[in-house]
């Protein structure tokens, strides 16, 4: 059993678990708790909080963020293709055109459906 290379992994997990549990439990036993108002405030870069933490957030932000991520990540996949354009040859070119067409349909759909307009 000791010869198994997995013993070390098991030991590693046990040590990690012990350290993490100790860090979570030990301070709770030894500290004195004297909470004040400023101590229990949420940390906001050292300045007093200006607004309630739980507020309503326009869903438009999420829409913009999602569209950005989608098109940004897909644009990122152009780079390796551009670097290896000559090596990939005609096949790579047609594949990329197909990719752009699929992307373009999605872009047109989002645009026409008003995904980009800030209403």
């Amino acid at each position, binding site marked *: 059993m000791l010869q198994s290379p*997995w013993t070390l992994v098991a030991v590693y997990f046990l040590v990690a678990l012990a350290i993490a549990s100790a860090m979570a439990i030990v301070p709770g036993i030894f500290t004195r708790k004297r909470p004040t108002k400023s101590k229990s405030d949420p940390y906001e870069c050292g300045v007093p909080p200006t607004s309630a933490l739980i507020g309503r957030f326009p869903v438009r932000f999420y829409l913009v963020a999602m569209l950005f991520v989608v098109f940004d990540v897909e644009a990122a996949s152009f780079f390796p293709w551009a670097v*290896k354009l000559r*090596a*990939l*040859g005609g*096949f790579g070119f047609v594949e990329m055109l197909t990719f752009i*067409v*699929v992307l373009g*349909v*999605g872009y*047109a*759909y989002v645009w*026409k*459906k008003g995904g980009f307009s800030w209403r």
Partner: protein
Amino acid sequence: MMQLPAIDYAVLAPLIILVATGLLVLLVDLVSRQAARNVLYGLGVAGCAASFAASLPLSGRTVTTLSGAFAADRFSWGFDALLLLTLAVTFLLSSLKRAEDGGSPGSYAALLIFCTVGGMIMAGAANLIGIFLGVELLSLALYILAGTGYPRQASQEAALKYVLLGSLASGFLIFGSALLYGAAGSIALADLATAAASGAPLFVAGFGLWLVGIAFKLALSPFHTWTPDVYEGSPLAVTAFMAVAVKAATFSVLARFIYTVFQHDSAALIPVWALAILSMLVGNFGAVRQGNLKRLLAFSSIAQAGYIVLALSGVGSKGLSTMLFYLIAYGFMNLGAFATISLLGDGGEEYVDIEGYRGLFFRRPWVATWMTIFFASLAGIPATAGFIGKLLLLEQALGGGPWGIAMAATLILGTLVSFYVYFKVIYQMFLPAQGQAPQFAGNAAASWVAIAVGATGVMLLGIVPQAFYLAQPYLAAASR
């Protein structure tokens, strides 16, 4: 010049046609000012037919492409046909309920199509990455579809629960795949067999995590807790699609994996058999107290998933055709049952309270008759597809050693309990009518077509099961 993998476009044609249909649906939705839902759904059905036509030359052949990542054989062909039929019937059911596509039939139809593409990738995937790609494509589209009954709060709840728990399951699946790759040094299923035989701890851990992800998608107990809520909240047509297509696609993955990687008496498969036994018990006993028809069918689908696992025990590749037979039978009876439910309720609202079915036979004898047949088939009454399916499953399991026998015994016990469950619904329909009766959907032609499809399948497979064996599929690469 770089070495590129050879691509056999004839093998991928059914997928390419379906993807193109999805894009076309989106474009048509943009161009036509007044989005005509029936035109979009009609396009979807036409895409199914074209994709099926493109898969016809592949029937009976065994070819792989994309460096062995994607296989087309009789096994995947049967699943593709089932998935395409399910998609077409789902479009029929969707055309009835006005409010259920979230007011955006274009994206709804496109998502259903992409979902099916994911299922077809799963049916043909011959390596771990292909499996994960298919599962994710299927799941991501379904998360949104579960929420398309948007104004209903239950539908939002279903979408949120599904996406949170589903992402967790995907995490298990991909982490398990990584460990399997670590154990075997290859992502091809065929190469995993060596690692499986050695019983390396890394392989066992990987398979365990991978199995959790798959069991979640199959709603095998104890990973079934999302099922009743998601089935209840999703729009009816989406629930029907979920119950049939997702289960079929995921079982194709599990079957290909187990048949390619393991011997049937491998000790690593004991967790699979245990999941099956637990699912049969939880599904059938859980259904007993349900008063909502969609929740009842959700528990029923948990139990049925447990039954289908029996096809994987036992010796020989006959189990694969048994599994396909049961899944096709299950598809017909579920689509039929959901189609009859879609007839009730008016103005886009669905009616799923079992009490409301009281006296249905005296008001709508044909609806009640077909519903009785579909529920009798779910219970496994002779002369229906469900009976033959269970018979084949029992035969397969009895060749599977002690675990096979334990599963067979649980199947019989579960079936006894399920008689009570399904006959509770049938019983209501034949009681004298009383109180407020639900309205019927106005223009129901589409549902009747769907009922006809389901009824033909259930009767045909129940009375002349040989019809299926004329085209008996098998996995050529993985006969035990």
